[in-house]
């Protein structure tokens, strides 16, 4: 079985390196094919591992020692248990689809080979992240996906920087750096968490840590929990480290689908799930996680309401859904979080890939106000996106319904009615903006014509490649019971109270109502044609939302600019004017003293003789002073 582990893990790496070999050449078709095949191999291996885990149990493999110093011994160790197996399967499945999809999407791109190299490298990193059996291995993957994300967001690095009013993300390379740096901020927290674990437990291995959790003081556990969660907040773009995710949409769309929707951003959720023995011990932190998740859910959804950028809307919805997952995890319903994670991966990837199709058709235009009526030319895409949106909105019997509904139930069950209410409200908003997007893109009037676009459907194999996702977006939810049974072998089972059991149908109906309500509102507003209301668009709430609560500008004004100015001061004012000037000043004083002293060397003998006489007197004075002191 170890072989399978290694095949699943290293197949993407091999693919990445293979593509990298040709990275600087113009497009070679087989790089795309080979990497996709290897990804498929990885998927198969993952699926077999899933089966193995299901039937036999967890697999453990240890490749070699990595860091050995002092008492620290960190090996490259991998564990495939229930959670990992699910994650692996989801990751490799979505990745495979995205790879195949990219063959079409990136067809005309100069950096075709490079793209596949990065993409496969990402999958490898992601697999390391989920498979590692210790925190430092997780951190490898954690940083690895960060770098790949940086590479892929900045894939079109040649684009120049433009103003925020033209493009809120400024440029791909800017967005890439923003993403990387924001993640680094969170990573520091995570690193501190790792240090705490090491010095308190003496090991970074999950099992050893979890075994040691009961012996640790509560305060320490809280601290560790917070630090690890800070790491998770960065990767999963939770408030206040969320701005990078929307800007990350500068990357090619398959990247958005894979990294910024299905996999990487869920790493934070994965971490919380993985560390459930820790978080179960610290309910206050968990509750904070749930509250923060809930807040992010509605916060992101609100921004999605008014945005006109196709990808950004989906990105905000991702953010919102991540909020759901954290809420679930925070409430202790770890398996639900994982379930939503998987379901979300499928439908959100599908949604993004569909968006990619639209972009392709619209020559990379992203403004949904410039689209409309694309249903005629892009029937398949319309279907996929419709299905995905239904799933996202949580309409029965699509996947999203099962997962999201369970989360709401859990919130209700915990008697966190505030959370429940906000999430419930968010469900309505979700349905509204999802369908606002769908309607404005595919239905309503054909506005694209006035901008001179000639949309067309994408290649057939690309559409087929999307099919598994489409299918799963529909049916994945049906395996809720089996899924629960499988993963709760590792994760704590989540039992609803009797009260909730009684209420469950009412809850479902209420939720469904608001979701459908959202769709209906969207339909009324946008299905026929784009109706714009100048007054609303000029109103303060609208502007706040469309400017993302002015947070990016605030960050720039409050952190980036002052930092740059402070840096400049540090260099020009402190380093040069104080520190270095002191050094040079000492040198100058010495030299000036020399110049001054040199003046006693007048060349005039009489002066020299005077100095000798004076010297004798000075010596006398000196002698007197010393003699008095002794």
């Amino acid at each position: 079985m170890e072989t399978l582990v290694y095949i699943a893990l290293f197949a993407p790496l091999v693919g990445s390196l293979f593509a990298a070999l040709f990275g600087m050449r113009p497009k070679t078709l087989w790089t795309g094919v080979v990497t996709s095949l290897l990804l498929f191999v990885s998927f198969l291996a993952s699926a077999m591992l899933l089966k193995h885990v299901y039937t036999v149990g967890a697999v453990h493999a240890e490749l070699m020692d990595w860091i050995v110093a002092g008492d620290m011994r960190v090996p490259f160790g991998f564990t495939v248990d229930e959670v990992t197996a699910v994650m692996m399967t989801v990751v490799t499945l979505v990745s495979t689809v995205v790879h195949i999809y990219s063959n079409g999407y990136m067809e005309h791109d100069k950096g075709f080979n490079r793209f596949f190299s990065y993409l496969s490298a990402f999958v490898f990193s992601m697999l390391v992240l989920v498979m590692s059996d210790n925190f430092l291995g997780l951190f490898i993957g954690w940083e690895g996906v960060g770098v790949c994300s940086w590479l892929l967001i900045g894939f079109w690095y040649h684009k120049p920087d433009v103003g925020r009013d033209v493009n809120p993300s400024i440029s791909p390379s800017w967005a890439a750096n923003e993403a990387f740096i924001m993640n680094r901020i969170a990573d520091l927290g995570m690193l501190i968490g790792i240090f705490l674990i090491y010095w308190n437990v003496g090991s970074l291995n999950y099992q050893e840590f979890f075994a040691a959790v009961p012996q640790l003081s509560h305060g320490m556990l809280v601290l560790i929990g917070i630090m690890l969660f800070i790491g998770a907040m960065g990767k999963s773009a939770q408030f206040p480290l969320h701005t990078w995710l929307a800007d990350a949409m500068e990357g090619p769309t398959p990247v958005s689908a894979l990294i910024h929707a299905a996999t990487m951003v869920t790493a934070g959720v994965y971490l919380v799930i993985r560390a459930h023995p820790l978080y179960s011990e610290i309910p206050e932190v968990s509750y904070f996680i749930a509250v923060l998740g809930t807040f992010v859910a509605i916060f992101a959804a609100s921004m999605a309401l008014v945005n006109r950028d196709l990808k950004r809307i989906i990105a905000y919805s991702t953010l919102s859904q991540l909020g759901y997952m954290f809420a679930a995890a925070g409430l202790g319903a770890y398996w639900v979080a994982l379930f939503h994670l998987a379901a979300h991966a499928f439908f959100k990837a599908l949604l993004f890939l569909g968006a990619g199709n639209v972009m392709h058709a619209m020559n990379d235009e992203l403004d949904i106000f410039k689209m409309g009526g694309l249903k005629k030319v892009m029937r398949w895409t319309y279907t996929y996106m419709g299905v995905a949106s239904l799933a996202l909105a949580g309409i029965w019997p699509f996947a999203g319904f099962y997962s999201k509904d369970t989360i709401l139930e859990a919130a209700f069950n915990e008697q966190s009615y505030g959370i429940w209410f906000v999430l419930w409200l968010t469900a309505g908003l979700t349905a509204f903006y999802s369908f606002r997007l769908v309607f404005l893109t595919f239905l309503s009037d054909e506005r694209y014509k006035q901008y001179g676009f000639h949309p067309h459907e994408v290649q057939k194999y690309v559409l087929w490649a999307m099919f598994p996702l489409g299918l799963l977006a529909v049916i994945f939810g049906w395996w809720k019971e089996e899924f629960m049974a499988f993963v709760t072998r590792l994760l704590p089972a989540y039992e609803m109270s009797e009260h909730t059991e009684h209420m469950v149908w009412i809850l479902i109906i209420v939720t469904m109502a608001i979701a459908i309500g959202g769709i209906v509102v969207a339909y009324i507003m946008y299905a026929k044609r784009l109706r714009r209301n100048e007054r609303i668009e000029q109103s303060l709430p609208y502007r706040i939302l469309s400017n993302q609560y002015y947070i990016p500008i605030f960050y720039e004004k409050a952190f980036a600019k002052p930092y740059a100015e402070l840096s400049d001061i540090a260099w020009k004012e402190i380093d040069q004017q104080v520190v270095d000037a002191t050094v040079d000043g000492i040198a100058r004083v010495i030299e000036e003293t020399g110049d001054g002293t040199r003046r006693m060397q007048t060349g005039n003998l009489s002066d020299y003789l005077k100095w000798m006489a004076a010297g004798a007197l000075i010596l006398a004075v000196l002698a007197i002073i010393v003699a008095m002191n002794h």
Partner: protein
Amino acid sequence: MIGLSHYLILSAILFSIGLVGVIRRRNLLMLFFATEIMLNAANIAFAALSSYMHDLSGQMFAFFIIAVAASEVAVGLGLLILLYKKYGSLDLDDYTMLRG
């Protein structure tokens, strides 16, 4: 009765007069006069000490100082003649090329 210290103080005063001459004089010849005064002052001190302590070393010292003074005069005047022949001046203000 004249004590030793009378002589010594005389010696000290003469030395100081010589010192004043040395630091005051600009004419090298006159400056050399002043150095002679200083050596003579020492001679007085040695002679007086020798006499009062009944020890001959002091007189010896004074004797050698006179010899040294004579030698110095020879060399010094040689130098002065050289300078005068070359540059026609004995004023030390004229010899300030080397400085700084």
